[in-house]
């Protein structure tokens, strides 16, 4: 099955830092300064047979634009869909056997390990 892991967490505003603010620093400093924070997770998942199909970190929600279309009119507004303390920080699309595997993948993700929340959503299969 395919699942999207949606990362929710509090954004770091002061230094304009993105997901790196909520991601572990250890991975970046221990061995390889260039290694992104999610690499250990990626290796762990690959070893378990969990496929990582796509993933990205997002620019902070201050860069978001909300679009609504009403008939021929397009309504554009600055800011995210919902002004909440926790915003979407990024996402990963994984492929694994079942929800238990997806829950495990989410629990090991750097965002979850650093106080963020991961929403696990099954992707609708197109047949």
């Amino acid at each position, binding site marked *: 099955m395919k699942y999207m892991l949606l990362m929710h967490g509090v954004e770091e505003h002061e230094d304009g830092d993105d997901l790196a603010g909520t991601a572990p620093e250890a991975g970046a400093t221990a061995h390889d300064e260039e290694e992104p924070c999610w690499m250990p997770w990626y290796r762990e998942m690959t070893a378990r047979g969990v496929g990582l199909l796509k993933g990205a970190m997002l620019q902070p929600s201050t860069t978001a634009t909300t679009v609504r279309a009403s008939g021929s009119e397009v309504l554009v507004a600055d800011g995210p869909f919902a002004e909440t303390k926790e915003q979407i920080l990024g996402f990963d699309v994984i492929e694994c056997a*079942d*929800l238990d595997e*997806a829950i495990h993948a989410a629990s090991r993700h750097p965002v979850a390990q650093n106080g963020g929340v991961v929403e696990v959503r099954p992707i609708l299969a197109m047949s």
Partner: protein
Amino acid sequence: MTDVQLAVTDAFRDEWGRVVATLIRMTGDWDLAEECAQDAFASALSSWTASGIPERPGAWLTTTARNRALDRLRRSKTEAAKLQEVVALNVPGEAPPADDSGVSDDRLRLIFTCCHPALTLEARVALTLRTLAGLSTAEIARAFLVPEATMAKRLVRAKHKIRDAGIPYRVPPAHLLPERVGGVLGVLYLLFNEGYSASAGEDLLRPDLTAEAIRLGRLLARLMPDEPEVAGLVALMLMQDARRGARLDSDGELVSLEDQDRSLWDTAEISEGTRLIEAALRRQRPGPYQIQAAIAACHTEAARAADTDWRQIAMLYSELGKFVPSAVVALNHAVAVAMADGPAAGLSVVDSLAAEGALDGYYLLPATRADLLRRLDRRAEAADAYRAALVLAPTEPERRYLRRRLAEVAG
């Protein structure tokens, strides 16, 4: 009832869960499994009347339900893929495959799937009662005081989530097992408590739910003989249920443990519970249910209330607090201390709990304070505390008990 009707009723109690569980594994379709199981039980009545009660009713029912599922899948061409699956699995008398856990009973798969933490607690309880215990949607709705349509929607939503979110139909692997067993036990104990001490409404007891919880607990204990916490929960439920006949007086009033007529306690349940908890504790892997069962055993072992070993109970509550660091456990510890060392000692523990504020809004806090103050003959303070408890008490019999006590100290 005729012999056949009786046999079908017995088979329903004993075999429903097994038939549904097997059909779910074969077809992967929860609704189809339930419908075909229902059909099989319906046709048993006429078929057994005509050709006699089969030697193994469970096998007859499973085969009939499976054939029904095959028929239905054959007819629906869009489900060709499913049909292949069924044909592949359709080996007569085949034993279900054992998974990582080494357990091969389909009912165990079913209960772990019903109690998966990705479902809401209400959904877990409802699904367990529907699919494993065979209660109808209407019966479950009545038990939880919700409209039948609401309960039906809850069940449909839960089954869809299992299918669409890919909740696996299996006994969890070893590394997940302790946590998941805890989740299953939590559902069973909630079910028991919902029957034993109804959280809402006029009736204090709903014995159907307690009986179902005990039945499912026994089943789980048979299927998982190496889990002492499972035996601990069954022992706990049995020993609490044993006191059922003495909990209410002839007017439906609540009788406190010390005032209960102990000759009304169910000795068969007590000895079964005692046997279970003693065997479980010998495994030296204590847990919260085993400790609570040991506490219940301290009560049931005492021939008179005055013989109760409160020092042992106080010690057990303090052990329990290490597993379940909750204010309610701390309150029970305070009560045991009061019984062992006197009401003044208990009151000081209760007052420090009240100061922490974690029990605000919980009626047993002022009710316990009131009882201790009454024992210390501080009547005015006791009356105030009874009044505070009355405002918070959730059911009518509990309120009547408090009003009676209030009249004693205020009068």
